[in-house]
């Protein structure tokens, strides 16, 4: 009875059932997800009113309206909420369309994002796609270096007790140093030996991304149990064969989890690496330039561009993960 292949009857049910489940599931989650997004947007718009109240009331006063308190000096020390409550009309009407708001409204950020991506030539220094590509190229290079380094270290750590005890503590210590403190030093040191351009940023990016890969891969390479290792010993398999046939395939699910964390960390590293270089190009440069000139809309749109870029990178890794794990028969 229990000898009947589970495959034949269940495979078909599994496939069609899975698709149906997914549809049902996404229909079921669409409404809650939309609700959460709507709540965030509502909160954001609401927050714009007190955040931008000083400017709104000032502009209303200049336009000839009577505001309270009447002089700018009296208003200066009032909080945005109090000011908004005492001048509800001007505070609400003036909150969402300022040139340099303290907190730009979502539609302002969206418009700026649209204008600086679709509305510009890709080669223009005003194009977020141009700046995004500058950051992305450093991110990808750094991510590749960090991932390769992380995997290499993990293989060493798993096979050598000396490496386990000497490398791992330093890897952990390296992550406790604030990156913002170490980034300028890396750039200065590399510049003094003639390395500049994309490489210093990639180094900082790799510095952040190798760590999750090391931790994940050490766990993954050690995940085979004693029986699976014994089995290979009964075949007289070498260490290298054990690594290739057992440890590496067993570690892949761990690797993908690490890569998702690592790629996001890489992007942060590349952006941080752009801050001390004088802010010529890249998303980090847009952030810095925006804060020099009080261009909050520009800052926020660069922030969102970075977040969208990170989401795309993580989604790409998820896709590769799904494809490779299902090819390996590891996803059901």
């Amino acid at each position, binding site marked *: 009875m*229990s000898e009947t292949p589970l495959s034949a009857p269940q495979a078909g049910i599994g496939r069609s059932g899975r698709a149906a489940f997914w549809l049902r599931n996404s229909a079921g989650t669409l409404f809650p997800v939309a609700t959460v997004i709507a709540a965030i947007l509502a909160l954001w718009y609401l927050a714009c009113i007190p955040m931008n109240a000083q400017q709104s009331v000032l502009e209303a006063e200049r336009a000839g309206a009577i505001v309270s308190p009447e002089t700018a000096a009296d208003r200066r020390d009032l909080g945005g909420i109090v000011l908004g409550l005492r001048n509800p009309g001007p505070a609400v009407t003036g909150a969402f369309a300022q040139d340099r708001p303290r907190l730009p409204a979502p539609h302002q950020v969206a418009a700026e994002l649209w204008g600086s991506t679709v509305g510009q030539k890709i080669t223009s220094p005003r194009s977020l796609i141009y700046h995004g590509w500058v950051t992305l190229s450093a991110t990808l290079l750094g991510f590749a270096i960090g991932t390769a380094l992380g995997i290499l270290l993990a293989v060493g750590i798993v096979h050598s007790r000396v490496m386990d005890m000497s490398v791992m503590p330093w890897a952990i210590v390296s992550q406790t140093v604030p990156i913002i403190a170490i980034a300028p030093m890396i750039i200065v040191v590399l510049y003094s030996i003639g390395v500049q351009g994309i490489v210093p940023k990639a180094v900082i990016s790799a510095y952040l991304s190798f760590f999750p890969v090391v931790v994940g891969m050490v766990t993954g390479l050690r995940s085979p149990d004693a029986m699976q290792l*014994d089995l290979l010993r009964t*075949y*007289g398999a070498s260490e290298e064969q054990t690594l290739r046939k057992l440890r590496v395939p067993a570690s892949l699910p761990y690797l993908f989890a690490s890569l998702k964390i690592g790629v996001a960390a890489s992007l942060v590293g590349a952006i941080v690496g752009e801050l001390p270089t004088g802010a010529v190009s890249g998303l980090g440069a847009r952030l810095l330039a925006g804060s020099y000139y009080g261009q909050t809309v520009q800052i926020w749109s660069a922030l969102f561009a970075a977040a969208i870029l990170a989401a795309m990178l993580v989604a790409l890794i998820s896709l590769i993960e799904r494809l490779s794990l299902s090819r390996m028969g590891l996803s059901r």
Partner: protein
Amino acid sequence: MSEMIVSARGLDLTFETNDGPVQALKDVSLDVEKGEFVSFIGPSGCGKTTFLRCVAGLEQPTGGTLAVNGMSADAARRARAYGYVFQAAGLYPWRTIGGNVRLPLEIMRLSEEEKARRVRETLALVDLEGFEKKFPWQLSGGMQQRASIARALSFDAELLLMDEPFGALDEIVRDRLNEELLALWARTGKTMLFVTHSIPEAVYLSTKIVVMSPRPGRISDVIESPLPRERPLDIRDTPEFIEIAHRVREGLRAGMAAA
């Protein structure tokens, strides 16, 4: 006189644990001839699995001598003298059934045609034709264990070591696999060392039953089975079968009382 496959003399094995030394094997002496089917039976902690692991070269005895195929157990392991079947099937989930059976062949670096041929032949031997491209999770527990037996058979070692291979299966599947195992043994003429904690299983399968007892792990009785090699399942209702089973039970009880 036929060929000696396993020969143990005064085998001792003491594990150093945090609670002090534990004697897993004490003065174990045993000979296994080519083509025999030897079962090891006893309560947990009697050292039956430990003895099997010693033969496999996975544990180092602390005393006595042990020869497998005329060499040391470690040399026999490196010469791939045996196939080992563990209690759990332990198939690699990322490999198909065929891929799992191919694993030892890949490690032994056989040619592509040779690998393909042996995978096909061994899967046929355990009645798993047509499942080569399935993944382990698509198979029932009994079929997975058959695949793991195929994996141990694929490189055609003379000796098959089986550590409670059917322990986790239900009785109906187990009966069927026992029957198939006997047929397999008759067809291949391999030497079998089989660890179990089931008396009927031991008596049904074996030409020789080694009864072991715990603390310290030792052999308390060795029973040569008078049953014929051809054994239908209903042989288990014959007086001879019941008599051997009785003797095994007595041996187990005596061992427990002494401990």
